[in-house]
């Protein structure tokens, strides 16, 4: 093994340490956690996990999160696909400015928008619905999806479109039957990033929900403060939030690096 392999190994160790600690905590009893320091759980307990899987406020948190994240991913992709196609194939009045404006929306600090978002979604009667969070997350996910998809689409030669028209395909049929399957790697990467950014965001999700659509992350903060400081429970809930991300990333592992490389700035 070459010495420079040490750099990634040390870095990964550094990444895994806090995660290890979270996992270890989640299997400890509250007494053991507060009683003193121990590197490994002395008596393994699944009590924290049992609480989460039996208490509806907990597990509904997960279900709510998964619902709005999936909803957001679908909406973002459906809207971004034709737009990315237009940016990659056509020149139209103001296209460059529009593209840049879309990207600037990633710069809007969520904290700035929290209150106006609350008022806006209350006004249109969507407050505390999954749709509200899914739509709000479009603010930063659509620009990203457009950007990634545009990169992939620009890599597909225009001749593909032309050949299909010559063969008598109508535009919608060409788009769905030929074009979309051609860039499915790009769609996978875009879906991954939409999933990721929607899953990790908390501020807007928390602001736009109260009971019905409350995300897991919000359940965590509230439970932790109301029921004293149940570190084991908090750790177990945290561990469970890492799992969906880990599963998704395993599926797209071969595309991650590529997805970044293809976007245009």
């Amino acid at each position, binding site marked *: 093994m070459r010495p420079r392999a040490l750099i990634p190994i040390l870095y990964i160790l550094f990444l895994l340490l806090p995660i290890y600690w979270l996992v270890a905590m989640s299997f400890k009893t509250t007494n053991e956690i507060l009683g003193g320091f121990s590197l490994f759980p002395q008596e393994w307990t699944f009590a924290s996990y049992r609480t989460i899987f039996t208490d509806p406020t907990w597990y509904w948190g997960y279900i709510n999160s998964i619902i709005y994240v999936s909803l957001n991913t679908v909406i973002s992709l459906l809207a971004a696909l*034709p737009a990315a196609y237009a940016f990659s194939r056509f020149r139209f009045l103001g296209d460059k400015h529009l593209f840049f404006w879309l990207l600037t929306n990633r710069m809007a600090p969520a904290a700035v928008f929290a209150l106006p978002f609350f008022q806006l979604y209350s006004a249109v009667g969507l407050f505390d619905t999954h749709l509200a969070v899914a739509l709000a997350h479009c603010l930063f996910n659509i620009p990203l999806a457009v950007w990634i998809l545009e990169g992939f689409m620009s890599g597909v030669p225009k001749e593909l479109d032309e050949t299909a028209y010559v063969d008598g395909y109508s535009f919608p049929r060409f788009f769905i039957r030929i074009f979309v399957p051609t860039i499915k790697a790009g769609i996978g990467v875009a879906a991954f990033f939409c999933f990721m950014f929607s899953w990790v965001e908390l501020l807007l999700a928390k602001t736009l929900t109260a009971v019905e659509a409350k995300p897991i992350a919000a359940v965590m903060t509230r439970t932790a403060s109301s029921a004293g400081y149940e570190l084991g429970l908090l750790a177990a809930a945290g561990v469970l939030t890492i799992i969906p991300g880990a599963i998704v990333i395993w599926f797209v592992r071969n595309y991650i690096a590529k997805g970044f490389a293809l976007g245009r700035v």
Partner: protein
Amino acid sequence: MKTENQRGWLFVLPVLILVAFNALVPLMTVVNYSVQETFGDNLFFWHGVGWFEDVLRSDRFHAALGRQALFTFTILLIEVPLGVAIALAMPRKGFWVSVCLVLMALPLLIPWNVVGAMWNIFTLPDIGLLGYFMNHVLGIDYNMTQSPLAAWVTIIVMDVWHWTSLVVLLAYAGLISIPEAYYQAAKIDGASNWAVFRYIQLPKMKRVLTIAVLLRFMDSFNIYTEPFVLTGGGPGNSTTLLSIDLVKVALGQFDLGIAAAMSLIYFAFTLLVSWLFYTIMTRNEQ
């Protein structure tokens, strides 16, 4: 070559509506607040640019901006070189690439408040792994709730932990796009490792590094959840970054006018710096 086709607008329309709904309406609301004064009961009065003057003159805003600048500058200075170094040391192909990428991407997929909570648990003085190690093994007095220095070091290490992988992924994507022939030519030309880095790898990574710095700048400037969960802005105000201060003003004190003016100044500042950086970095490309 792209064809001139105004039908493009039709394709972009759904995106336009969705993003405009989310971006313009709230932005207008914020602008609206920023030029009005309220005494409750939904009564608003025109206040002109008064709030903007107040914010720009306030020591509190300057202090928060200063802390924010220090934070962003520090994490960029650590994460970008570190990310590049890790990407350079990573294997280029084979089984270990997938393992590295998956493990490294893990922190990016953890909800931000969980990141804060995780680091909180990790650093608790007597029962956290890091806290215990610092206090009882190394004998360094380490307590985030009391020492501003400890709090600062912790939020910076946490951000490095959370986001360096993004720089690694981007830099790595840039590196693997360099054809093997470049390395072979450099070998034949007798180039040193440093020359290979300086004249081949760095120029080829420039584009992705521009993206990395922009993303990290924007996101770290907007950072709220992780430091809020970890330190709550304390001890005192020592880690009260811009967003945390903003939320304190808006929701804690309900000074909507000031908060809105702060938001806009802050948004404009982010936009300006990003645009300047982007323009400078892409100046040499035709």
